[in-house]
């Protein structure tokens, strides 16, 4: 029995150590990036244009580029993803189609982002002739975040108690009235978190867009302008620069990207906490 007891102690110690290791890794990464960007991040960095190929100035046009991509991808992906999620949970039922579609979404989630990039390059950039543009990049990102939206919509609709629906039907509401006024209303916060997670993913994605948005540093003037989003800017600076000014700006960009993820995660948590409390 003593050995079992000691075993127990050792095992728990190992479990603690591995978890603390993961925490330490996270803190080290974030700490390193943030420490190296101190002194570069300020309002001027955020609100001024890059100069000398990114060695001087700020990253305003990159931030705008990222925002443009987010705007396009979420506008395209949200209605489709939410619609798909509603169909799968409320309409499809045990229909064999529902299984196929769910698997399709899962499959889509596993496809490496560079394959999306290849697809986007061949389809949007070359075949449709959109060129290296915000539109091409935004559409590729929309394809990528679609599955996230579908999945969260499904999950949050499933969490709506059946009694809500029954009550609505009892009042004589049609199916769509029930779905739109009762189910969607209570599932809205959950769906919103899906959209926000999609924003986070779109903001950080690099491989899929490096073949579709080009890398032009100026402010975009139309949907067909090429931009250089923050993630791509970070990549290009990281692989191509040793100039101290450029490296400092790369760290600044990295910190802003991490900050974006942090904001996304925080808002998801806040929404979910309110939401689960409201459902109870």
């Amino acid at each position, binding site marked *: 029995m003593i050995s079992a007891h000691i075993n127990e102690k050792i095992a728990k110690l190992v*479990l603690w150590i591995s978890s603390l290791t993961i*925490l330490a890794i996270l803190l080290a990464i974030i700490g390193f990036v943030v420490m190296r960007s101190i002194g570069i991040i300020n309002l001027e960095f955020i609100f001024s244009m890059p100069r000398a190929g990114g060695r001087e100035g700020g990253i305003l046009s990159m931030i705008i580029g990222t925002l443009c991509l987010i705007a396009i991808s979420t506008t395209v992906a949200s209605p489709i993803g939410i619609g798909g999620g509603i169909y799968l949970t409320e309409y499809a039922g045990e229909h064999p189609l529902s299984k196929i579609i769910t698997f399709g979404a899962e499959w889509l989630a596993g496809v490496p982002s560079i394959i999306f990039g290849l697809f986007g390059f*061949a389809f949007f950039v070359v075949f449709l002739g959109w060129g290296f543009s915000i539109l091409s990049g935004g559409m590729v990102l929309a394809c990528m975040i679609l599955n996230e939206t579908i999945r969260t919509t499904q999950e949050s609709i499933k969490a709506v108690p059946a009694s809500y629906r029954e009550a609505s039907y009892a009042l004589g509401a049609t199916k769509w009235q029930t779905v739109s006024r009762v189910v969607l209303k209570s599932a809205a916060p959950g769906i919103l978190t899906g959209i926000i997670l999609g924003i986070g993913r779109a903001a*950080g994605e690099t491989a899929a867009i*490096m073949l579709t948005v080009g890398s032009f540093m100026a402010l975009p003037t139309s949907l067909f302008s090429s931009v250089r989003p923050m993630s791509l800017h970070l990549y290009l600076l990281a692989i191509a620069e040793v100039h101290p000014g450029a490296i400092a700006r790369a760290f600044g960009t990295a910190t802003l990207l991490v900050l974006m993820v942090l904001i996304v995660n925080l808002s998801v948590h806040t929404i979910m906490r309110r939401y689960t409390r409201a459902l109870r």
Partner: protein
Amino acid sequence: MLKEWIIEKSLIVAAMVSFVIIAFIIMIVFRAGVPLIAEVGVGNFLFGMDWRPEREIFGIFPMIIGTLLVALFSMLISVPLGILTAIFLAEVAPEIMRNILRPAIELLAGIPSVVYGFVGLMVLVPFIRTHLGPPGFSILAGSIVLAIMALPTIITISEDAIKAVPKSYKEASFAVGATHWQTIKNIILPAARSGILAGVVLGSGRAIGETMAAIMVLGNLPVIPTSVLGPIRTLTANVAMEMAYAPHGPHRQALFATGVVLFIVVSILVVISNRLRRGQ
């Protein structure tokens, strides 16, 4: 009623989109890549040792080996760490640790891959170069970075699998006098095995599909490595680095063909993990 019909049909359309995207990806990427594989010969393409696009010699065997090696080494690091942390979260962790670890893991999952690659390039590559020998860009550096990136996938899916084990199993084990660790080791882990395996498979899929971090720290040399300190090129890096310099003719086709191989490998992994999770 017409309105209801229209809505239902348009929801079906929305639900079909993810499947249509998959179909489009297959159609477009395969159409561009398969003719070259057919022309070069499946054997020559998959097992060819030389990649010299300028002379139209396309063999991706070193990159297949490279991709698998990096995935394998990264799993050697992340699987033990990930599963232990999942056990910790599901079974051992006090409430406070859980509340710290969960958001930490979500943050780890949300940090863009280009940031991981950047930190790897800034920290790991110089460290390995000075302390373990040049060139620094190496399998070791890549494996560590990809291991960290695969951790969140492994942890979340394994934790779900462990939590899905019925409480009665655990109670029965306690009832016969087993310690907590004995219960975890002998009852819970075997019961959650296929779910954990699904997490590992999906995690290795993530490592195989990762592009940015791979391109930034692996050195991109398409040869079979002789040591973990040597450089390697992955399939994803091959596509990204040469496609960004969009070539034409057979070279472009060969990169799409690389994408085809990558797509097939990852799709197999998705199917396996899907089966495993359903099997639980």
